[in-house]
């Protein structure tokens, strides 16, 4: 259809066109208050260093789709606790790249100006975060796997260390390269100490034996006991006095002094009494002799020394036995320890390799995050809020629809018109060319 034929159809059906336009405009005027006013908040984001990014799969042309994706919008809806469905949110969010730049406008239209601003800003922020997630997602997976592997290796290392500690605890010499020499040296030292201890024990035992209490009291002890016994001392004193009297009477008198035999008998009686008192005093269990008591104390101490010597000898014998056991056990524990040590060395090598790879992955992620990122360039603020023209937009849409309806009606009526008005229709009917046309319908 040419422009001329298009105009001709409109001219032929101008009545229909104007009628539909009039009715449509009248309806628009009637329903002008049905559409509520709304506000639009607009934030701007910029995609930085897009070309240098390690992950070029996401470019500026993809940002509108990401911004209006259900992932981003659902997060925004939850974070702001928006009282609207995801579909409604999606319908009112707009995202478009400005020309050929790397800047994209993110807008939201709502009856509330504040919510329009908040949502547009939230979408911009969430877009920035989500873009970072997308950019570093592959690296995150890598890092997570490497971290998990590192954790497993660390656990194995800890287990190995525990096993080696137990082996070391059972045989400390396994950690040394000259473990046999060390044990032998220690064993020799212990043997020397054990010999000395045994000699000391014998000496102290001899001393103790020499201090053992005797059944017969010593002269000193007997003297101390008797001197401390008053009855004995009294008998002794009386005997001494009577003896002195007898000596004096014997010197004074002759053998025929009649008193002498009496005195002799008295002295004999007193001597017997002294002996009896002496026997009694010495057999008295409460009799006390300081020197005997001191000797007893020394004996007790010596017994303690002997006991100490015996304990030390026993301890040394135990140590010697332990060392001897270690020496005997050294071949088995040494090989076990060496095996564990080899395993630990291998694990440490593996751990170091994984740690290096994880460090590289972290560096790559950081690089990807820094090279390709979406930055919120311009946040929606109060001043940016504008009357989004809910009515205006609806009016424009309605006007376009009315115009389309008017034009469509014209062409519909024209197509349904059975009358033949165009040369091509006549040519089709007759199969003969039209050689001349007269009038506007041509």
């Amino acid at each position, binding site marked *: 259809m040419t422009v001329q034929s298009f105009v001709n159809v409109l001219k032929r059906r101008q009545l229909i066109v104007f009628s539909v336009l009039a009715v449509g405009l009248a309806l628009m005027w009637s329903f002008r208050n049905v559409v509520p006013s709304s506000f639009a908040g607009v934030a701007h984001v910029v995609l930085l260093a897009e070309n240098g990014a390690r992950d070029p799969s996401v470019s500026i042309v993809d940002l509108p789709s990401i911004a209006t994706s259900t992932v981003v919008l659902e997060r925004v809806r939850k974070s702001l606790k928006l009282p609207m469905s995801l579909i409604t949110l999606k319908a009112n969010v707009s995202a478009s790249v400005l020309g050929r730049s790397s800047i994209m406008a993110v807008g939201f239209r709502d009856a509330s100006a504040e919510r329009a601003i908040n949502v547009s800003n939230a979408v911009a922020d969430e877009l920035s975060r989500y873009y970072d997630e997308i950019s570093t997602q592959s690296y995150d997976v890598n890092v997570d796997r490497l971290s998990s592997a590192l954790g497993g290796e660390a656990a194995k290392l800890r287990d190995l260390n525990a096993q080696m500690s137990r082996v070391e605890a059972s045989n400390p010499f396994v950690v040394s390269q000259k473990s046999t020499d060390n044990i032998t040296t220690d064993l020799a030292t212990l043997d020397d100490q054990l010999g000395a201890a045994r000699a000391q024990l014998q000496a102290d035992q001899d001393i103790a034996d020499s201090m053992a209490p005797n059944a017969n009291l010593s002269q000193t002890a007997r003297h101390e006991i008797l001197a401390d016994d008053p009855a004995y001392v009294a008998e002794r004193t009386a005997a001494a006095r009577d003896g002195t009297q007898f000596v004096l009477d014997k010197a004074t008198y002759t053998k025929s002094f009649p008193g002498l035999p009496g005195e002799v008998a008295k002295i004999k009686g007193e001597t017997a009494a002294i002996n009896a008192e002496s026997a009694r005093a010495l057999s008295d269990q409460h009799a006390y002799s300081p020197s005997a008591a001191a000797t007893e104390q020394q004996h007790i101490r010596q017994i303690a020394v002997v006991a100490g010597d015996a304990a030390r000898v026993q301890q040394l014998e135990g140590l010697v036995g332990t060392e001897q056991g270690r020496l005997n056990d050294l071949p088995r524990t040494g090989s076990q320890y060496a095996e564990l040590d080899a395993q630990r060395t291998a694990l440490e090598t593996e751990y170091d390799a994984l740690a290096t790879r994880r460090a590289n992955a972290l560096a790559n992620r950081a690089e990807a995050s820094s090279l390709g990122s979406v930055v919120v360039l311009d946040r929606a603020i109060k001043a940016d809020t504008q009357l989004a023209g809910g009515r205006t937009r609806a009016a424009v849409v309605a006007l376009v629809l009315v115009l389309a309806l008017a034009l469509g009606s014209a062409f519909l009526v024209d197509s349904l018109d059975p009358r*033949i*008005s165009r040369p091509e229709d006549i040519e089709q*009917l007759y199969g*003969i060319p*039209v*050689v001349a*046309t*007269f*009038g506007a319908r*041509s």
Partner: protein
Amino acid sequence: MKGRIQTDSMTREFRLLRNRIEAEIHAPAVLLVTSATVRDGAGPTAYGLAESLSKTHQRTVLVTTSSPPTSKQQLLAPSPVTLRRRASDSLEGGLAKAGGLSVVTISHERIATISRSNVASLMQELRTDYDYVVVDGGDLPSSGFALLLVASVDAVLVTFLAGRQQTPQDRIVLDTLERTEAKMLGIVMIDQESIDHFAQRDVSSESREIPIAKKAGNPLVQRLEVALQRIGKPF
């Protein structure tokens, strides 16, 4: 102003049509202008074409018939050709001249009794005196004159009223043209507004028409009258 523009436009269209005819049909030739229905504008087209041919110093004659009015509308708003026919009716079939164009009118009473051979001889007669004989055949399905002529003319033009619906007469025209193997020049499409404009234009020019049929001593007139009398004889 609008009428002037339309006149110029129609004049230009007729000139183009004339040039096409002159290129395709060599003189002397008989052209039949016919249509499927009465109101398809065969008369105005034949007249306009003849007039245009006559303006190029071609000797041109328009042969028309004085058909009776077929409708009340024709009576109340007659076309210029009808008016012309009415003027010629007084001649009882004769020759008139409008500017450089000769007009031969055959009354409808004669058409009713005419024969194919007589019509052919009349056309032959006119061919000897004129370069182009343009015949207003009216609507082909109902016009006996056009049916008699269609097989013997050199070329046929079919007019079509723009904006009318398709009719069974269209099929009749197509079948007739195909059956008679007439040479089709093509279709002339004309709308009602042009027909009406043509009528207004020619009403004014009608007054300048000078009847010459009865002029004594005109040998052409005399020959035609003989021919007309001959074709008017009953079968």
